[in-house]
């Protein structure tokens, strides 16, 4: 939410997707992919927070993140 936010590394996202799919990316797809990633991360953190609260932890621990990872990924399966 900070104003002076650094942009995300566009090249990195493009590289990752290109390596996995072995296809070229059109010009601005990476923005939308990053948007999708943002939504995923939001879901992941929300679920992890819920899980942590259920487990009675104070912050979000790695355990709760690992537990909800699979569920969140399943939500974002196209």
């Amino acid at each position, binding site marked *: 939410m900070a104003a002076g936010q650094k942009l995300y590394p566009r090249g990195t996202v493009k590289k*990752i*997707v290109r390596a996995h799919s072995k*296809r070229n990316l059109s010009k601005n*797809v990476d923005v*939308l992919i990053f948007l999708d990633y943002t939504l995923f991360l939001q879901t992941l953190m929300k679920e992890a927070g819920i899980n942590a609260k259920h487990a009675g932890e104070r912050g979000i621990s790695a355990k709760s993140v690992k537990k909800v990872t*699979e569920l969140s*990924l399943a939500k974002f399966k196209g």
Partner: protein
Amino acid sequence: MPAEETAPETIINSTTAEPTSQLRRKNTTIHSEVEGTLANMPYANRQRPGDISRPTTPPRRASSAGPPSLHKSIHRTSGAQGTTPNALSKVGGSLRKHVAVTPHGRAAQREIEARRAGLTPGNDRRRSGRQQRETPRDTLRALSRLLAPKSHLIVPTPTGSNPQGNFVLSNDDLDNEPDLERPRFSLPLGTEDDDDDSLLLPPRSTSLEDEDVTMQSIELGRRAISEQSRSRLSRGSFGSVRQSDHFGNLSGLYVDGYGDDSLFLGQTSGDDEAILDADGRHGDNTETLGELGLDLRAMSQAMGQGNTSGQEMLSVDETENTFFFTVPPRDTTQDLSIEEQSMTRSVLPEPVPMGWDIDVGVLDTNETTVLDWLVSSPSSMKMETSVHAIAGQDAKLIGKNVQKVSRKKTPRVSKHGIQYPSLPMGVVKRMATRFAGISGSKTSKLNKETLDAIMQASDWFFEQVSDDLDAYAQHARRRTIDESDIVTLMARQRQTNATTTPFSLAQKHLPRELLQELRMVPPPKLKNGRQLQVVEEGV
């Protein structure tokens, strides 16, 4: 006095047919007011309870006045009771009883009353709370209240220590009992292990130390299950290299063992103790290999497949090490590892040296001594060639391991053999912290492990998304991934629907600069994409 007491009871009996509320009112008034005025009783029956207090007739008149009152009460009762002559006679009898003035008569009367009370169990309960308070249960309860704070739980002493004189003779038997129980405590653990081992090893396994064996049994089972469930996912996903790069801090040496740890993780969803144990045991195994297991290995190579007690340990190590070997090449650069695998498989007849050279690669200090030992040991020429091959691979593996240990952020390789980085940790951390703060947890600090887990999840996410986009583009017979693909993907992920467009989502979530970039191009392009989709389907 007993004669006087009976009077209200008789009245109550005669008026039972009245409505209960009225009856209760009468009861209370009778009990409160009419203690001494016996004469009123029949009139109280006849009249309203308010009139009871007026003493008008002497007590003698009560006997003669009884029957008419009875008739009245019968008139008031329901017709069924009134018509039956038996009920009439009974009630009349009870009323006539209190005429008996002789002591025997009184005694008989009391007896009858007592019997009646005994026959109707709720009778005395309703009459007063006095008798209820005196029940033995209450006394017991009071006793318990007294004793409760002082009493202590009796802890049963162990069976051996019974100092009573009676058991002195049978003390030998009591001494025998704990001897029997001790194995009973230890045996179930042992038998569990034996059950696990019995699948793999002969029952002689009690002589072996259990750590290798249990680890092996656990490992095998878990691996099989995870392979079954996650076989459809690609190599970077859950089953194969779960947490592969992120557990380096547990034990720096064991870069290669992480495949196993990832399997543990995949199964039990992150019980770290198991992983730690596993790592510790890996370490133990390598030590034994370096010090002690090597000659066993040489023996086995010389003798083929023998059956000594050491051989069993060896077999345990074999399976582990082969397992080690199959996993790490996937992690590291693929082309190299594939070549190596093919080399080793072509050269070496058994899987034993394969596992072995991995371990030597890890403990590179032992390498030369091992090689010397192997060369000097009585063995065939074939073995020497294998040793040479091993030496060649060791060099490569050592180099790789050193590389991996030295810098942990090695680029991973996708299934297409292309290296890819992961997102920079700072970006992920910033976003994750933001979302964690949004989702309501007060402490928005994320520790390192959590961040590692998030990084792993985001790596998997990118892999999954890329695969999906790849599939969409392939379906559209395009060589590039288009905006339409990601739009389709987001629609299928239920992120966008009729009300939320990708653009609105971008407006909500992306920083302004990116939004501008997106705004400059995509809105026409989105339309284009949709039209293109239709056209392509038509074509």
